[in-house]
C-alpha cells in the first residue's frame, strides 16, 4: 500500500504541465482578442459611428499579433499551449506550426482590409445588424481553426465561423440574400455534420482527438482499423467546405448575394479554411491514405479548376464570375494536395495564401467598379479606365495575378505545381493547370476589355458628376494589390516559408515533439 500512496502523489503532479512562457501566450491571444472585441462591439450595437473606430484598430492589432506569432514560430519552431495545463492528450492543445501561423497572418491582413473597406460599404443598417461583431467572431473561428491542435476543437471553430458567416450573409435580409443563404446554410450544415461523423469515428478508432497523438498512433492502427473510410469521409466533408467540384454548388448560389465586403471576406477566407483542414488532416495525419486517394483527388482537382473557370466565362455579373474563379483556384490547391510531394504541398500552401489576398482584392475592385460605373453587369459596364485610371491599373494587376501571369503572386505557386506534376509524369494535371490559366486570362481579359477599356455607354454620368470614391475603400484595395505585387516581385521569402510549412506537414516529428516533449525524447 505504500507504493500506492506514492503513486497518488506522483499522479497529481504528472497530469499537469509547467506553465507556458509569457511569449507563448501569443498562441491563443488572436482568438481571445477577436472574441473580446466582438463582445464589446456587440454591446455597442447601436453606436454605429463608434464601431469601425474600435474594430479597425483592433484588427490592426490582430495583424500585429499574428505577424508576431509567425515570427515567434519561425524562430523557435512549432509551439504548443494546452488549456488548463492538463497534459496534452487530456487537455485541448493549441499547436501552431508554420502553416497555421502563415495562414493566420495572411487572413488577419485580409480581415483588416475588409474592416477598412466595410466602413464605406456597410451602412448604418448593416452595422446595426452587426457587421463588425460578426466580422470579429468569424475571425475568431477562422484563426481558431488555423491554430488549434485538436480535431474536435477544429470542428467547434468551424461551427463558430459558420454561424457568424450566416449572420454576415443575411445582413439586411434582402430577397436575394435569403435565397442564397438557404442554399449556403443547408449544404454547409451537411458538410459540418459529415465532419462530425468522421470525428466521432476517429475517436472511436483512436481514443484520442489530439492531432499529434493521432499522428503517432496512425502508423500502429494502419492495417487493422478502417482508416480509408475515415479519411474518405474527411475528404468529402472538407472538399464540400472548400467547394471542390462535385460538391461546390452552394458557392455560386450565394457568394454574389451579400454586401460586397462580405463576399470579399468569404471568397478570401472561408474556402481556404477547408483547404487548410485538408492539408492538415490528409497531408499530415494520414499521408498513406492520401496517397491511395491521390488519383481521385487529382481528377476532382482538374475538374474543379476547368469547370470553375468555364462557369466564370459564362457569367454576365462580375461578382458571379469571381465566385466561379474562387472555385477554379480551389482546384489548383487540390492539385497540390493530390501530388503530395514537398513541391506540390508548398505550391498548394502558397497558392492558398495568394488566393486569400487576391480574391478579396478582386471583389473590392468589383465593388469600386460598380461605384464608378453603377453596375456589376458586363453588358452595361464601360469606360472605367477613362473615369479612374489608377483604379483601372490596380484592377489590371489583380486580373493578371489571378490568371497566374508574372510578375504577380499567382505566377510562382502555379510554376511550382506545374513542375511538381511534370516531375511525377502527371502531364494531364499540369495541362489542366495551364489550360485553366489560359481560360482565366480570357475571362478577366474580357472583363477588362468590356468594363474598363470600352468607351462608356451613352447616357452614363461622366466622372465629374460622380461622388468621390471613399478613401478607405481605395486604400484597402491598394494595400492588397501592394501585397500581391510584392509577393510576385520578391517571392523568395514567401516561397521559403511555404516550403518550410510543407516540410512540417510531411514530417510531423517537430509537431509531435512540441506536444509531447518527454515522450518523444525517451
Amino acid at each position, binding site marked *: 500500500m505504500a507504493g*500506492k500512496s506514492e*503513486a497518488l502523489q506522483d*499522479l497529481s503532479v504528472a497530469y499537469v504541465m509547467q506553465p507556458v512562457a509569457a511569449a507563448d501566450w501569443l498562441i491563443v491571444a488572436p482568438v481571445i482578442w477577436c472574441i473580446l472585441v466582438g463582445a464589446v462591439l456587440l454591446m455597442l450595437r447601436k453606436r454605429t459611428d463608434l464601431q469601425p473606430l474600435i474594430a479597425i484598430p483592433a484588427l490592426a492589432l490582430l495583424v500585429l499579433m499574428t505577424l508576431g506569432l509567425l515570427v515567434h514560430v519561425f524562430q523557435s519552431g512549432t509551439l504548443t499551449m494546452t488549456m488548463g495545463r492538463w497534459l496534452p492528450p487530456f487537455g485541448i492543445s493549441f499547436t501552431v506550426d508554420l502553416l497555421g501561423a502563415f495562414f493566420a497572418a495572411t487572413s488577419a491582413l485580409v480581415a483588416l482590409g475588409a474592416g477598412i473597406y466595410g466602413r464605406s460599404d456597410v451602412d448604418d443598417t448593416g452595422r446595426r445588424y452587426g457587421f463588425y461583431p460578426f466580422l470579429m467572431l468569424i475571425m475568431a473561428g477562422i484563426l481558431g481553426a488555423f491554430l488549434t491542435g485538436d480535431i*474536435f476543437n477544429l470542428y*467547434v471553430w468551424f*461551427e463558430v465561423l459558420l*454561424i457568424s458567416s*450566416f449572420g454576415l450573409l*443575411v445582413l439586411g*435580409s434582402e*430577397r*436575394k440574400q*435569403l*435565397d*442564397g*443563404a*438557404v*442554399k449556403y*446554410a*443547408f449544404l454547409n*450544415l*451537411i458538410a459540418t*455534420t459529415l465532419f*462530425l*461523423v468522421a*470525428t*466521432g*469515428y476517429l*475517436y*472511436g478508432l483512436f481514443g484520442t482527438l489530439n492531432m499529434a497523438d493521432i499522428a503517432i498512433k496512425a502508423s500502429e492502427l494502419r492495417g487493422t482499423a478502417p482508416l480509408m473510410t475515415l479519411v474518405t469521409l474527411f475528404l468529402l466533408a472538407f472538399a464540400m467546405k472548400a467547394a471542390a467540384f462535385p460538391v461546390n454548388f452552394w458557392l*455560386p*448560389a*450565394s457568394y*454574389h*448575394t451579400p454586401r460586397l465586403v462580405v463576399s470579399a471576406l468569404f471568397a478570401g477566407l472561408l474556402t481556404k479554411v477547408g483547404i487548410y483542414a485538408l492539408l492538415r488532416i490528409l497531408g499530415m495525419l494520414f499521408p498513406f491514405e492520401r496517397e491511395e486517394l491521390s488519383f481521385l483527388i487529382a481528377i476532382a482537382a482538374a475538374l474543379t479548376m476547368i469547370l470553375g473557370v468555364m462557369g466564370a*466565362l*459564362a*457569367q*454576365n*455579373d462580375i461578382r458571379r464570375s469571381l465566385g466561379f474563379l474562387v472555385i477554379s483556384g480551389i482546384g489548383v490547391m487540390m492539385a497540390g494536395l493530390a501530388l503530395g510531394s514537398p513541391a506540390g504541398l508548398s505550391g498548394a500552401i502558397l497558392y492558398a495564401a495568394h488566393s486569400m489576398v487576391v480574391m478579396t482584392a478582386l471583389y473590392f475592385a468589383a465593388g469600386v467598379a460598380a461605384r464608378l460605373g453603377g453596375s456589376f*453587369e*458586363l*453588358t452595361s459596364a464601360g469606360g472605367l479606365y477613362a473615369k479612374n485610371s489608377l483604379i483601372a491599373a490596380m484592377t489590371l494587376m489583380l486580373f493578371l495575378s489571378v490568371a497566374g501571369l508574372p510578375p504577380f503572386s499567382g505566377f510562382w505557386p502555379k510554376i511550382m505545381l506545374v513542375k511538381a506534376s511534370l516531375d511525377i509524369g502527371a502531364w494531364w494535371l499540369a495541362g489542366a493547370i495551364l489550360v485553366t490559366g489560359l481560360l482565366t486570362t480570357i475571362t478577366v481579359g*474580357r472583363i477588362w*476589355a*468590356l468594363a474598363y477599356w*470600352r468607351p462608356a455607354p451613352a447616357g452614363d454620368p461622366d466622372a465629374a458628376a460622380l461622388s468621390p470614391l471613399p478613401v478607405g475603400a481605395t486604400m484597402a484595395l491598394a494595400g492588397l494589390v501592394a501585397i500581391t505585387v510584392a509577393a510576385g516581385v520578391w517571392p523568395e521569402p514567401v516561397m521559403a516559408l511555404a516550403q518550410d510549412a510543407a516540410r512540417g506537414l510531411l514530417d510531423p516529428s517537430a509537431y509531435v515533439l512540441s506536444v509531447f516533449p518527454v515522450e518523444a525524447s525517451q
Partner: protein
Amino acid sequence: MEPILAILVGALFTVAIYLFLSKHVIRILMGAAILGNAVNLLIFTAGRVTREVPPIIPGDADALTGAAANPLPQALILTAIVISFSFFAFLLVLGYRAFQELETDSSDDMRVAEPVGDKTPPSGY
C-alpha cells in the same frame, strides 16, 4: 444493445437523406433535425453503452478494471447538441423568412439569386 443502436442510427441516416432529397424546405429542415440526432446517437454508441456500471476506480488499483462507458463522447455530444440546436433554430427562421419573401417552399422555384435565362455576357466588343 450496440447492434440495435447501430441499426437505429442507420435508419435515422436513411430517413434524413430521404428528406434531404426533397424539394421542399420544410422537409429538408426536418431532415436536418433528424441528421443531427443520428450523428449524436452514433457518437454515443461509439463511446460504449453500459448499464449501471459507475466508472469508479477500486481502492487497490490505479485504473478502471471493467469496461465502463467512456464519458468523453458524451461531452462531445453535449457540445454537438447545443450547436445543432442553434443551427436548427437559425435554419427554421431562415426557411420561414425565405418563404415569406420568396413566396415559395420549393427549392426549384427559388431562383432569385440565380435567375433562369440570365443574360449572357456580350460576345463582341
